């Protein structure tokens, strides 16, 4: 039984990674999860300089999901490179680094710096709804997607994954723009912009007013977008959005994802990633599927 997956020349032992921002740099969950079981660890977004993030409250619970407006707090690339990459390299897993910025120049700076680091792939977050500049704005216009993808492709030594925003009319258009500019893969979906109001205090539940919705609630939207993107482009897709168990992950794979990421579910069940891996294998055994590749996009 083969669960290996190769994307842009990088081979993952299984198709399961973590969704950026929900697993820290891996370190925080290493007491709970054997990181060497994972196909890859995708790290929290990293920027050229340290970012303090948004004021609190940064999260709110919603029906079957949560809103977050962390605001991409991160220690900046220097600390990240010096501390987190060596930590992750101790494990038998691939490293995908999520990259954030406020301007194209910011993104370029991080990507150039990471080019000489020992990481396997870069995931470019052009879809964070929680920062005022950059982030999502890049991901909502095909021209911007193309521009930033093109600029980063020139600089990156590792393959790059463009992480798309679900807050768009036509996800296929964004996927095509990423492909046209040479992206090696796309990942989707980032969170969907949402809002919660505290009716007793008559105020926003989040200091940032809006936040990104994640968790099981958004899964049907994510599966649909993965399917639409898979129909539109030939690029490998990393699918995510509300995956908590193997059944959920298999929906994404059958819709066309080559890999999947577990996000919010880590908070609710730190063993989620490993259970997803075990469950996919159990499914393959149950139905006599020899190669995970036979399941990718099998529902048309």
């Amino acid at each position, binding site marked *: 039984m083969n669960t290996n997956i190769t994307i842009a020349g990088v081979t993952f032992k299984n198709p399961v990674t973590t969704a950026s*921002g*929900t*697993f*820290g740099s891996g370190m*925080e*969950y290493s*007491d*709970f*999860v*054997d990181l060497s079981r994972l196909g890859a660890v995708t790290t*929290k977004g990293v920027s050229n300089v*340290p*970012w*303090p*993030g948004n004021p*609190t*409250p*940064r*999260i*709110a*619970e919603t*029906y*079957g*999901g*949560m809103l*977050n407006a*962390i605001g991409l*707090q*991160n*220690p*900046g690339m220097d*600390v990240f490179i010096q501390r987190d990459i060596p930590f992750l390299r101790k494990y038998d897993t691939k490293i995908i680094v999520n990259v954030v910025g406020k301007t194209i120049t910011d993104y370029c700076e991080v990507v150039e710096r990471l080019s000489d680091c020992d990481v396997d792939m870069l995931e470019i977050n052009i879809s964070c709804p929680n920062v005022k500049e950059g982030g999502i704005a890049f991901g909502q216009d095909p021209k911007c997607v193309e521009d930033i993808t093109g600029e980063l492709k020139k600089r990156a030594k590792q393959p790059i994954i463009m992480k798309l925003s679900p807050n768009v009319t036509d996800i296929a258009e964004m996927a095509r723009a990423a492909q046209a500019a040479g992206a090696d893969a796309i990942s989707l979906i980032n969170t969907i912009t949402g809002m919660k109001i505290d009716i007793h205090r008559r105020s926003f539940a989040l200091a940032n007013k809006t936040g990104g919705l994640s*968790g*099981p609630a958004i899964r049907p939207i994510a599966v649909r977008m993965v399917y639409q993107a898979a129909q539109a482009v030939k690029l490998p897709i990393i699918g995510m959005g509300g995956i908590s168990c193997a059944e959920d992950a298999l929906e994404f794979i059958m819709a066309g994802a080559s890999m999947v990421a577990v996000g*919010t579910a*880590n*908070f*609710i*069940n*730190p*063993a989620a990633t490993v259970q997803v891996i075990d469950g996919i294998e159990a499914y393959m055994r149950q139905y006599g599927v020899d190669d995970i590749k036979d399941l990718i996009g099998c529902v048309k």
Partner: protein
Amino acid sequence: MPFALKKKAIIVENTSLSEDIYSIWLEEREIALSAKPGQFLSLFCNDASRLLPRPISICEIDKAKGRIRLVFRLAGQGTKEFARLKPADTIEVMGPLGNGFLPEGKKALLIGGGIGIPPLLELAKQLDCEKQIVLGYRDKTFLNEEFLPYGAVYVSTEDGSSGTRGNVIDAIREHKLEAEIIYACGPTPMLRGIKAYAKEQGMSAQLSLEERMACGVGACLACVCKSRDTDHHTNVKNKRICKDGPVFYADTIEL
């Protein structure tokens, strides 16, 4: 604790201390054996529409029986669900999480406000030094009698129905309480007052903070508070309450 995950704890007892305050004893040996005062548990709801854990402080630890006591106030749907738990029911928990109070062995003032009082009970039991205990309430008192074996107990109520009328600082001033260190838990305005008071008096103070949490283990950066210095982990002036706290020295954080 390598690969320590969520555990199913068994409810041993659930009683109400007042209209909206509940006291639960739950059994989970491993947790009880490693728990320290000031740490907390993440409690998960059985209702699948509510995903996030509810952080609740450890109120008492019974290592012999492998049990933990939690005392909580009805706040929303999650705590309402916990209030309905019956003996033999199970609940999913993670913990003990965070760093508790750091016993310093100096003459101590333990200050609790409202639902910040419970975590001081186990601390009062374990602290091996002279203790004065100040408990602040809006009106009705709870848990105060359980502190009596461990030190002198002073009460304040906002409506003056018991003890000093006013807040905990008023009670401290009224009774001219002196100590070298403060251990405190309660609402932010109270903690802010205590921080100022401790500074004024030249005392050190350990404060237990609160913020909304998602992961509870330091990964998501939901639960930060502002810190005086750049934090070694975050590399910005933010500390994670779940992982670096919930207890901090007053002078290291902004309130």
